[in-house]
């Protein structure tokens, strides 16, 4: 009994401990640059949580990371490390943009779903190469996806800055600089913002917030992923392969088939990562298009422990850190480099503490099981 109680306490204590540890290390960093740690933390929380636009921006920031975390976790669940989400989402976003600006005159009801579908298709296409190589030729997916990330960077650059660049942008006698970007997407391809829906509940979001329907879509996607993993035969196979490929094979599951389908699914979800930004904030794809969502997704998936709902929470944590960073940067003039260090410290503390605590909890649980078993045994003997 006592142990069970301890386990619950530990579970609750883990995130709290992580925050305390990261606050402690961060304080040293902040003191080192001559600012008051208290003021910095106070500003982070006040700025991020007391303003309506900040809260909405946190959710907006979290949106791509939910998709990205889910895509990475699908890989992890079957024992594959999809580092290639980075490239997959860029290619996906480009496909979506392409479908957006080339098809004109379609009604939004058809155009928008088509654009989203193209995004998923693009991501899937880019994930097909590594998984084909893996299944047919045994090429390790880590190597091939990393390399494909580099290829995607340059390919996207070529497509945006050379082939599809919008050269109709006005300049003053050739002065100034055109943005290296695709033509703008027509309104029928853009994702509506959540302002209308929230307005019904009396929440008036400021105009400069771009929180859009991809956020609820992300939550839905998390739910679907959970359902797929836990309640479908394929989800069972996927988890079985992830835990022990050979055992799964012996049980009659074909790991190759699971890898192929699972990885393509992961790629399709990855293809949606960039769409929230593309179809609401930007409305075009340019060279300044956000990067690193794919890599952040790995951290999001790990912190969320590959659980779709855990991923939602950790994506929001990342969104919160990003917004808080903007706050302390503008209001307290904390340098950008320090902020990067602070974010890394916080993420690392969380990863380390949750890992240590989880191991400890597991050990406790094992002991508890042993105790229960032995007491059952002894009662049987009696």
């Amino acid at each position: 009994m006592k142990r069970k109680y301890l386990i619950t306490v530990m579970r609750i204590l883990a995130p709290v401990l992580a925050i305390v540890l990261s606050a402690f290390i961060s304080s040293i960093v902040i003191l080192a640059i001559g600012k008051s740690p208290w003021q910095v933390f106070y500003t982070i929380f006040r700025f991020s949580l007391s303003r309506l636009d900040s809260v909405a921006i946190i959710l907006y920031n979290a949106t791509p990371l939910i998709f990205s975390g889910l895509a990475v976790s699908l890989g992890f669940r079957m024992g594959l490390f999809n580092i290639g989400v980075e490239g997959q989402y860029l290619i996906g976003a480009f496909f979506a943009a392409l479908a957006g600006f080339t098809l004109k005159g379609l009604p939004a009801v058809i155009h928008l779903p088509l654009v989203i579908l193209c995004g998923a298709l693009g991501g899937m296409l880019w994930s097909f190469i590594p998984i084909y190589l893996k299944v047919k030729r045994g090429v390790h997916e880590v190597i091939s996806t990393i390399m494909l990330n580099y290829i995607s960077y340059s390919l996207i650059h070529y497509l945006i800055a050379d082939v599809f660049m919008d050269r109709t942008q006005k300049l003053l006698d050739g002065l100034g600089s055109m943005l290296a970007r695709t033509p703008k997407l027509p309104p029928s391809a853009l994702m509506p913002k959540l302002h209308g829906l929230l307005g019904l509940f009396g929440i008036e979001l400021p105009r400069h917030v771009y929180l859009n329907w991809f956020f609820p879509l992300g939550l839905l996607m998390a739910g679907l992923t959970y359902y797929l993993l836990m309640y479908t035969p394929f989800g069972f196979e996927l988890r079985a392969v992830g835990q022990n490929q050979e055992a799964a094979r012996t049980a009659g599951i074909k790991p190759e088939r699971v890898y192929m389908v699972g990885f393509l699914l992961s790629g399709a979800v990855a293809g949606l990562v960039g769409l929230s930004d593309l179809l609401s904030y930007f409305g075009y794809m340019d060279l300044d298009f956000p990067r690193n969502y794919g890599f952040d997704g790995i951290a999001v998936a790990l912190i969320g422990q590959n659980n779709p709902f855990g991923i939602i929470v950790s994506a929001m944590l990342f969104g919160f850190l990003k917004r808080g960073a903007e706050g302390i940067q503008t209001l307290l003039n904390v340098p950008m480099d320090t902020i990067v260090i602070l974010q890394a410290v916080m993420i690392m503390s969380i990863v380390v503490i949750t890992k240590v605590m989880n191991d400890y909890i597991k050990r406790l649980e094992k002991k508890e099981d042993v105790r229960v078993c032995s007491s059952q045994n002894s009662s049987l003997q009696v």
Partner: protein
Amino acid sequence: MKVRKILAVGLIFLLVAALLVGCSKQEQQPQQQQQQGQQAPETEKLKVGLVFDVGGRGDLSFNDSAYAGLERAAEDFADKIEVEYREPSGGGQDREQLLRLLAENGYDLIFGVGFLFTEHIQKVSQEFPDVKFGLIDGFIDGLDENSNVTCLLFKEHEGSFLVGAAAAMKSKTGKIGFVGGMKTPLIERFEVGYMAGAKYVNPNIEILSDYIGTTGEAFKDPVKGKELALKQFKAGADVVYHASGASGVGVIEAAAAEKKLAIGVDSDQSLTAKEDQRPYILTSMLKSVDVSVYETIKSLVEGNFKGGYSVFGLAENGVSYAVNDYNKELISDIQPKLDELKDKIIKGEIKVPVDKKEYQEFEKSLFK
């Protein structure tokens, strides 16, 4: 077990203590803010903010030039303005948020350094009609004198033309090089101007051209800058011009190592280079971002800020080539020719191409 329990209890205690300390300080916070609030109206200084481009402060080039203008204004108008600067930690929305937050916090004039700010300033300037914005290198259509945005534009191709001519005249091998940062139309204009200038004085010159990368990182990658410059030197080039922000530090290093010549960009890079590298910097293409920033702040202080477009070319002394104590002797023999070319450009006798298409026509006209 016992040790762990004690540890856990200890941690909880620590946590509670931290919370208590936190809460008690929270009460002090509003007082501090009130004090700050009381101080603010007394001084009533104009607040000037500046948000950097990729590469950030310390690139010894583009961003530092903007910073120099900001700093000079802060000194000259010390009793009238206070200045702040920010570096975006990410792309896209982060940039826009920084602009917006500065505007919200009562800044009167905000600069966006670099054309990547074009869309962001366009959006934010509409939300804050009372705040003035300065956009360097970007063009927003449809502005006039009453707009709250002023676009500061430079004729980089004219300045690049002169250093291109200088490179061609100084080259003994008949090969010169160009190292660009991120491959964008803006950097291509540097390249085109440079090539045109070189071809103008020596139609047979061969120009090697490389770009560092395809992302903003290309402006802060001195290692790759050095690699590319070394490659060009090995291929026979003996003068290399760079337009790559902080990556150019590597180009200058390569020139010093190979005992060949480098041409700096945006700021006078002879002044910021290391002592032993200075003899290897032929000149720098000066883009007076500092002047444009300074003049814009000055107009605000004097109450005659105008929206619209300010163009800085050779005629306006907005671009030029650097002459300083370190390159005086090196460059003195070609200076008369350079000044002659400068005159011709200002008078309109030479029309410097602005893009690849115009360059091809320009090249054809040379061979006629």
